[in-house]
């Protein structure tokens, strides 16, 4: 599995559709002034992978992830994020082994309706969780460290730390 691209529209501070094509090997650096939207990109990735807590996305309720408007734009009615992976050795679970690319999508309407998709087909959150099982991604995974949380592993409880080791098991 290799990360290919992230597409967001109407998510947090991103009103228009934005697409980021990650390089296949090596390090992608993300820069920009304070408040420009860098950590919102991290939130977008955690959200599409199934994050259920608005508080963990720095909001009060989940609706806070939908673009709330600016002095020059109206609020959006929908937040949508798609994360695409290359599936080179078709190493994913049987269901998706014939695809060379897998994309997961999450949408949230201001009405409260929300949906998940894999390769544009509606699915449940548990399907997405299953897709990434044993990869270290999503949930209590060890692959995403949010801003200001690097020392949480050292200061958290012994049981929380165990959950990190369990992810790799």
């Amino acid at each position: 599995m290799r990360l290919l691209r992230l597409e967001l529209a109407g998510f947090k501070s991103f009103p228009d559709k934005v697409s980021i094509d990650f390089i296949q090997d090596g390090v992608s650096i993300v820069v920009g002034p304070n408040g420009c939207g860098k950590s919102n990109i991290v939130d977008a990735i955690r959200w599409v992978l199934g994050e259920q807590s608005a508080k963990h996305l720095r909001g009060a309720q989940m609706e806070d992830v939908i673009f709330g408007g600016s002095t020059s734009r109206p609020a959006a009615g929908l937040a949508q994020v798609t994360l695409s992976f290359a599936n080179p050795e078709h190493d994913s679970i049987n269901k998706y082994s014939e695809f060379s690319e897998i994309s997961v999508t999450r949408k949230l309407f201001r009405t409260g309706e929300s949906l998940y998709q894999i390769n544009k087909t509606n699915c449940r959150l548990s399907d997405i969780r299953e897709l990434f099982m044993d990869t270290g991604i999503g949930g209590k995974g060890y692959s995403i460290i949010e801003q200001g949380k690097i020392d949480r592993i050292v200061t958290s409880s012994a049981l929380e730390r165990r959950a990190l080791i369990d992810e790799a098991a």
Partner: protein
Amino acid sequence: SKKRFNEVYKRINVEFRALFPKFFGGGEAFLKLSDPEDLLDSGVEIIAQPPGKTMQNLTLLSGGEKAMTALALIFAIFQFKPSPFCLLDEVDAPLDDANNHRFNAHVRLLTENSQFIIITHNKKTMEIGDAMFGVTMEEPGSSKVVSVDFERGQKLIEPPRRKGA
């Protein structure tokens, strides 16, 4: 299962024991089970002793020492079982230049098996990038992403001085 957890825990501990002294130029650190009799539910403790220091409560470690200890454990897990990608949001903020250098060098090693995405304000960290993305709010309140070449990246971080600066 119990057996699986124990095996994984041991393997990660080997990696962590090896990586900590690399990150601190000496000293030692290891993981310990809170309750070795109960493999199914036991918590995992960290014991860390930077070079020259006595074994102390982790809370006495400095901001930079805590960050480097945490990074050593995360990277140890990656060395045992690389995840497809690793996303780090300003983890280098508390590090001094020497530790920043060690962090950068180790990330480069791990890119053999995983893609790294690193958010930073630190120019030395930017230098390890193979590609760079700039997030801007040219229209205040609306984020956009542009892909920049390295030279321009430096300019992007120095936004035009706004009035009041």
